């Protein structure tokens, strides 16, 4: 995502990519009116803590599953990964397939029963029940801080993209979008956020799906697309041009693919650690599933999310690949997108260069005339707002239950928590806006905060998974393992920053790009977390079994779903998704 960061670090106003017509503006204004109307309509149903923070725990599997996915499907996700597909080829699809599907199925079938049965309000809340207040405080403070900072960074990034694409003023974009989110989340709480996330999910697909359809028609199908990419990259003397359309066959050696990674980094770093950490412990997405009405819905929700997640490369990765194959400048020459710092330099601007992350808006402008363009822009705005609402609602819950309720006012009533939740929603948005303006004036902060966020995910997964599966893990082991894993991740990041040659130790190759470094750093800090947790647990006193009921495998009675018809069983649909996942890997091998 470094290209994403780089593109948003510039304040230079380029010529806008597209111009909106009246019908486009009507579509965008209608979207804002509808999300506000939903917030107003739902305000009556957000009076208790369970209503405001957990949406009454009455969501169906479909609603929870689509919101689970939508909260992750931010606009920077869409544009950043389309840009990564242009830069790295189809390797970027690993972040949607092996980097998501196994983890989502693992969450559904292995971890969800524990989250659901213990009736926790949050992931830090589970850590409190399992490991005590130390681990809860560490994870909740880091999560709350990083979530609200990330929200601000995404807000700023979105505003810059709107400036690049549409020429909109930065302040206008930041204030209109954030105030809208603040209003509908404050009014309706998590229920309102989830309602809008499902709406936004449909709009994202309606607005973005046309691009790959039209692109494949123009390119002559998948085989035509492959041939054009090979021809164009060969013409441009790009190394390994054939590797851009193969998912696994070029991962034998670091030097055989544009990402500088091998299969071990993808399988273990991404598939086993980073994605497991994100999809099973990041409260931003977990909160949606915790709102499910019963255990079967809670298990089905991530499986439904996984089924749609497998299709997201169609609207994200494919447009990036189509850009490689089809984009040409006005003179008919191949248009080669460049890193954002090059595109946004004075020379780059003078030459009319475009950054990687502009590939999705460029493809949007290529095929979408008035009306469709408005819907496409609405999809990007909806993506941003669903991501921000996810951040804000998760921050509000963690603050209210795991910081305010656990550390500041342990006797807070339900009503005072709801009141606190509404205020914290507004405060969270204000802090996010402040972060957005801070980044505007000190843009290097953004790179650090994005990296910091990833520091907490991998160790947190180590702590939670040991807590759920190993009853011998002790409160001291959980706390020190989490702390050691986090500090080791920060240490490795700082080591490479101070001495760039250290990348050959951290990522096992001096050719490793940013994504490859992230994979290996996550793998090492996760292993350190596990090791420290195990060692400390073995020398400290475990909790008695009676205190671990509902929290740990082997001590928790899981409701039997054996008498449910096959088509209603989560494990059946999990198997279907897993089979489709394997087929996709083979097709694009």
């Amino acid at each position, binding site marked *: 995502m470094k290209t994403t960061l780089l593109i948003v670090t510039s304040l230079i106003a380029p010529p806008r990519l597209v111009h909106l017509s009246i*019908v486009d503006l*009507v*579509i965008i204004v*209608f*979207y804002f009116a*509808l999300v506000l109307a*939903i917030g107003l*309509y*739902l305000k*009556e*149903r957000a009076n208790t803590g369970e209503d405001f923070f957990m949406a009454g725990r*009455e*969501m*169906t599997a479909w*609603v929870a599953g689509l919101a689970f996915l939508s909260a992750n499907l931010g606009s920077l996700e869409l544009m950043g990964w389309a840009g990564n597909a242009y830069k790295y080829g189809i390797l970027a699809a690993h972040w949607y397939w092996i980097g998501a599907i196994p983890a989502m199925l693992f969450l559904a079938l292995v971890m969800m029963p524990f989250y659901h049965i213990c009736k926790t309000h949050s992931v830090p809340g589970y850590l409190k029940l399992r490991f005590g207040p130390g681990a809860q405080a560490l994870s909740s403070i880091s999560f709350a801080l990083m979530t609200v900072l990330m929200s601000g960074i995404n807000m700023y990034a979105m505003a810059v993209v709107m400036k690049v694409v549409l020429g909109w003023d930065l302040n206008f974009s930041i204030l209109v979008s954030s105030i809208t989110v603040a209003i509908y989340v404050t009014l309706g709480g998590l*229920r309102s956020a989830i*309602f809008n996330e*499902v*709406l936004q999910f*449909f*709009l994202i697909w*309606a607005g973005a799906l*046309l691009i790959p359809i*039209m692109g494949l*028609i*123009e390119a002559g199908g998948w085989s035509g697309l492959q041939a054009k990419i090979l021809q164009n990259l060969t013409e441009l003397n790009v190394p390994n041009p054939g590797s851009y359309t193969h998912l696994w066959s070029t991962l034998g050696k670091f030097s055989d693919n544009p990402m500088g990674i091998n299969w071990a980094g993808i399988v273990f770093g991404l598939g086993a650690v980073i994605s497991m950490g994100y999809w099973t412990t990041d409260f931003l997405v977990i909160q949606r599933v915790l709102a499910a009405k019963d255990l079967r819905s809670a298990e089905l929700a991530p499986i439904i999310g996984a089924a749609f997640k497998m299709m997201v490369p169609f609207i994200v990765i494919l447009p990036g690949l189509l850009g490689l194959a089809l984009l040409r400048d006005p003179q008919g020459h191949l248009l080669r997108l460049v890193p954002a710092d090059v595109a946004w330099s004075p020379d780059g601007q003078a030459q009319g260069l475009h950054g990687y992350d502009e590939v999705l808006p460029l493809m949007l*402008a*290529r*095929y*979408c*005339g*008035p*009306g*469709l363009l*408005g*819907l496409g822009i*609405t999809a990007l705005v909806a993506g941003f707002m669903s991501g921000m609402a996810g951040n804000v609602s998760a921050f509000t819950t963690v603050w209210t239950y795991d910081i305010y309720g656990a550390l500041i006012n342990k006797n807070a009533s339900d009503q005072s928590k709801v009141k606190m939740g509404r205020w914290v929603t507004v405060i969270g948005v204000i802090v996010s806006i402040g972060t957005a303006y801070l980044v505007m004036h000190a843009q290097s902060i953004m790179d650090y905060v994005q990296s910091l966020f990833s520091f907490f995910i991998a160790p947190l997964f180590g702590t939670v998974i040991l807590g759920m599966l190993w009853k011998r893990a002790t409160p001291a082991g959980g706390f020190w393992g989490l702390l050691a894993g986090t500090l080791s991740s920060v240490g490795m990041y700082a080591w490479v920053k101070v001495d760039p040659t250290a990348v050959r130790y951290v990522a096992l190759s001096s050719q490793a790009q940013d994504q490859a470094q992230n994979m290996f750093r996550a793998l090492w800090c996760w292993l350190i977390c596990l090791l420290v947790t195990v060692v400390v647990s073995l020398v400290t006193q475990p909790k008695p079994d009676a205190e671990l009921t509902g929290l740990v495998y082997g001590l928790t009675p899981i409701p039997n779903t054996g008498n449910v018809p096959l088509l209603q069983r989560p494990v059946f649909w999990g198997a279907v998704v897993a089979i489709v996942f394997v087929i996709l890997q083979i097709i694009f091998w």
Partner: protein
Amino acid sequence: MKSGGSLSIWFFIGLSLLVNGALILGRGIYELIAPPENRVVLYELHANVWWGGILFVVGVVYTWHFSPARERARMSNS
């Protein structure tokens, strides 16, 4: 999923698709009558007509099926 009244989340989605589909379809039909000077790539496929039409039809089906009147009838029957 219902809310405080009888409106389903799917009704809102249907309403959104219906309005957006109608606007895009309308613009597409207008362009058939008065073709624009600056045309997008593959303009000849008239994507705004059929894509807008698909959204409109899906929107009509959702809005009708999950309309407040039908939801109230379902609730009273159950």
